[in-house]
C-alpha cells in the first residue's frame, strides 16, 4: 500500500510518501498506525498522539476502524486548516 504524509506528520516522519507491505493482521487504519509507529523514531514521534492525526483511505476521510488493504492509498495528516 502507498502511504502519504502531510504537514507536520510529513516533517516528523521525514518523508512525503512510502510504499509499505505490513503483515496480514494489519487490516484497519488503527492497526496500520500501530505498525507504522514501530518503523522508526520519526514515525513514532509523528504518531505519538493519535488524537491529533487524521486519515484518508483512497482520498476519503476514514476513521480508525476503517479497513485497509494492499493497493490502497492511505494518507495521514493533522486536522485541516485551510480557507
Amino acid at each position, binding site marked *: 500500500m502507498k502511504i502519504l504524509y502531510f504537514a507536520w506528520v510529513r516533517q516528523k516522519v521525514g518523508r512525503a510518501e512510502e510504499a509499505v507491505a505490513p503483515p496480514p493482521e494489519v487490516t484497519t487504519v488503527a492497526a496500520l498506525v500501530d505498525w507504522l509507529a514501530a518503523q522508526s523514531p520519526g514515525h513514532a514521534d509523528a504518531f505519538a498522539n493519535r488524537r491529533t492525526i487524521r486519515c484518508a483511505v483512497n482520498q476519503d*476521510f476514514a476513521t480508525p476502524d476503517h479497513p485497509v488493504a494492499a493497493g490502497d492509498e492511505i494518507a495521514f*495528516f493533522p*486536522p*485541516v486548516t485551510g*480557507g
Partner: protein
Amino acid sequence: MATVRVQEAAFDLAAESALLAAGRTDIGGMASFVGLCRADDGLAALTLEHYPGMTERAIAAIAAQAEARWPLTGCTVIHRVGRLPPGEPIVLVLTASSHRAAALESCAFLIDWLKTRAPFWKREEFADGRERWVEAKAEDDAAASRWEAR
C-alpha cells in the same frame, strides 16, 4: 456543476463573477467570500499545503452539497496554495442564484465546510524566522456544525 480550482496563481473576483453571469438572465443575486492572509503577530507569510487529488474531490463534494441544499445557478471555489504574504487573497467562494438568500447562505456554508473538510494545511512564517503549523480551531468546527441539522 461547480467550478473548483486549486492553484498558486491569484484569482480575479470580477472575472470569475462575469463568467458565472455570462449569457444568463435568471440570476437574481451573487454572493462572494474572499479570504485574505492577515498579518498577525509579525507574520511574514503563510505557506499552504494540500493533498493533490483529494483536495479537489473534497471541495467538489462540498460544492455538490451546496447545490443539493440551495437552488444555485452557479458556484465557483478557488483555493490558492504555496507561499502567500499578508494581504494576498487565499480563497474565493462565489455563488449565484435567482434569489439572494440562497446565494448568501450557500456562500457561508461553503466557506464554513471548506475550512473543516478540505485538506489544506497552513504553516506560519514570522519575521524573526520562527515557523509553526496553524492548529485547527474549535470555533471553525462550531461554525461548520451549525449547518448539520439543516
